[in-house]
Every structure is written in C-alpha cells, then in structure tokens.
C-alpha cells in the first residue's frame, strides 16, 4: 500500500471512527430513554428519526457548510475545511440510524429483564445498564451500520472537508475526484479498500444478528 493510500485510509478511519463515538455520546442516552420509557410523543420522535434516515448527505452537507462558513453562525470556530467539520457532519448524519437501531435493540430485550435485575439487587440505573448489556449484540450491529454509513458517504466529506490533500482527503473524496486528476490507480485502490472495510465490518456485524 502506497504512502498516499495509507494516509487516506487511516484518515478515513480516524474521522468516521470519531464521528461514531461522538454520535454515541448523544445517541446512546436518547436511545435508552426511547427504548426503556413510555411517554406521550415517543412514537412521534421515533418516526422522526426513521424519517431522517434517508436524508441526502449533500443536503446535510450544504446546510452545515452554510453554518460553518466564516460568514455563518459558527464561522468564528473556523471549522470549514478541517477534519473536525467532517466529524461533526458525519456524527449528525449517522444519528438517526444509530438511534433507530439502538432503540430497536433495546426494545427487543425481554421486558422481564428489568424486574429480574431489580430482584437480584440492581438499582434502577443498574437495571437500565443491564438492559443495555442485554442489547449488546443489536448495539454492535447498530454501531457497525452507522460507521459504514459514515465512512462511505461523500457529500459531507466533500462540502465540509474540501478534499485537501494531507488534511481532509478521505477515501470517498479521493474516489470521486481523483479520476479527474488522472489518479486512476489510486482511486481504484481506495475503492477496493473502502469496499473491503465495509464488507468485512458488515460480515462481522451479521454474526451478531438475530439472537
């Protein structure tokens, strides 16, 4: 693997990996609430996130571009054309899929587990965490699906990152724009690596499906 390719691949993994962790920070608590509690408006919220699953990356990318632009509301942070901008964008992008799948996983847990945990001595909070642990297989599937979505998207990386060599060039932007530059081999290699990563992760995740 050439140095260029390695640089691009590692960066893609770093950016999308961080995006996943970042999204987990708010998606996990939200999924716990949606999965465990019943309250008015719950179904509306879940439907909302399901609807957001299909948001085109370029639409989100454009919206955030206007926000991060120096003229935009968050312009003072100079985030445009940095890896951070992509991380934030992808984190937002994968939030619906993360919440949807995590909530499903938690809902799928036997409702009697809560009482079981409590009668074995767990506090309310410990019981919730136990439920989460019971949902770990579905959670892994959720995480992998979200990561795949992030690492394979183009719109956000392009609009917020700018495909700057050595800084924000990731596999998808390389593939999309490299051909124009005549970097056909490199773009092909990036394609293969990206496919390999996505396939491998999906295969691993499927081992955890349905249990």
């Amino acid at each position, binding site marked *: 693997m050439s140095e260029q390719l390695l640089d691009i691949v590692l960066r893609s993994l770093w950016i999308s990996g961080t995006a996943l962790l970042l999204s987990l920070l708010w998606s996990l608590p939200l999924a716990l609430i949606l999965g465990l509690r019943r309250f008015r408006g719950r179904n509306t919220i879940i439907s909302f996130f399901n609807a957001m699953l299909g948001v085109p990356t370029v639409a989100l990318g454009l919206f955030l571009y206007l926000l991060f632009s120096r003229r935009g509301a968050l312009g003072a942070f100079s985030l445009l054309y940095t890896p951070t901008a992509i991380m934030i964008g992808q984190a937002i992008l994968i939030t619906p899929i993360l919440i949807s799948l995590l909530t499903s996983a938690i809902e799928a847990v036997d409702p009697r587990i809560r009482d079981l945990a409590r*009668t074995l001595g767990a506090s309310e909070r410990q019981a919730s965490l136990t439920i989460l642990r019971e949902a770990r297989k579905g959670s892994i599937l959720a995480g992998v699906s979200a990561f795949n979505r992030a690492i394979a998207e183009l719109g956000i990386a392009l609009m917020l990152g700018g495909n700057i060599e050595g800084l924000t060039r990731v596999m998808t932007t390389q593939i999309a724009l490299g051909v124009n530059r005549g970097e056909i081999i490199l773009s092909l290699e990036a394609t293969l690596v990206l496919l390999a990563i996505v396939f491998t992760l999906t295969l691993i995740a499927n081992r955890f499906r349905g249990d």
Partner: protein
Amino acid sequence: MAVHMKLHRVTRRYDGITALSEVDLEVKNGEVLTIIGPNGAGKTTLLRILALLDEPSSGEISYRGQRVDRSSVQEYRKRITMVFQRPVLFNDTVFENIAYGLRLRGLEGEEVAQRVNDALSSVMLDGFGSRPAKKLSGGEQQRVVLARALALEPELLLLDEPTANLDPTNAHIVERIIKNLRGRTTVVVATHNIFQARRLSDRVGCLLNGKIIDIDRPRNIFIKPKNEIIRKFARGEFF
C-alpha cells in the same frame, strides 16, 4: 416466632383491576409459607409485592419491624429475591447469570467463582458454568434460576410456581432444596398444586380473588378445614 415481613391492609390495583384487596399477612421468620389459589387469584401479584418489585396502591409494608418506604425500598429489596414463574435468563453463560447478583454486591474473582460453583452443585448442575444459559433445557433453566437466587443467600426467597413446568425428577430436586432451606431462609412459595402445599409448608395461605381467606397450618386447612369454603378450597374446587 419472630415476624420477618408484614403486610397491613395492602391493596394493589393496576390496569383497572384490583389484584389484591386489603391483604393482611405476616410472614414468620424461617418458615416455608405456601400461598395456594387458582389462576388469577393474585398469587404472582402478592409475591411481587413481597419482593418489593411493585408498590402497593395502599397499605403498609414492614420488614423485620421496620416500615418500608420509597427511600428504603432499594435497600430491603437487596435482601429479598424472587424467582419468576418462567425462567428469565440473561443472554450469557450460566456462570455470568449467577455471578450477576454477586457482583452487584461487590464480590469479585475467587469469591464469586466459589459461590457460583457451590450454587450449581446444590441444584446438581456442576460443570454447567460455561454453557450459554439460553440453550439449556427447560428443567435445567429452572434449576439455574433457582441456583442464581440461592447464591445470593437472601433472607427472604419468593418462588412463583417453582415446579409447574418440571418433570417429576426435577420437581423432586427443587422440593428437596426448598425443604433444606427451612430455618435458615424464609421461603414463600406460590402454587396451585395443593399436594405440594401439603408436602412442603409450615403454613398455608389461601388466596381467592385477591383476598386471603385463611392462613394456617396444613392440617387445619387440609385435614380439619374449619369451614365450608376452606374445605372446598382444600379439595381444589375453586381451581
């Protein structure tokens, strides 16, 4: 005999039904108390109240003479364990299922392993530790959940129809374990099997439509029933 747990005029209502109505009950220390009654009488509800899993709609509960309220319920709950009618297991090995409660109580490493293995031995499931709990047979699962409860050495053990789905061999093992607990652990068993009630109990409570109509020693229920209703109960006519 000292009173372990006391329910005073406890009523439990949910989903529009009154499952328990003005129940007065004293559970004595170290006894094996069996609650018999037909399906729908409220046995499970009563056990759940005793397990402090559900809050009564009205009435008082005291544990060893101390009033149980919202702030102290978590503490007392740790001293009570209930085994549900159908085995509920974590998606994990048998070992982890049993170790769960021990770890919650701060035990670690060797101590946990010791207690788990002892518990498995007591239900004759030695060596089953590494098996995935959900892959065991029904009878084996029932013994695992019993072992899980026993490992915690609770002061009060509540068993909801512990042998209802077991073959005679397994049922026999379970009854033997219950008998051996007498004196050390207070046990309350809910069952609709009147023969089992006769075999096991120090006292029998008759539950019908959410009310305790009588509670006494087995001979006063089954051999010398004190009134017509009890006699019908003892003959299984309400079941």
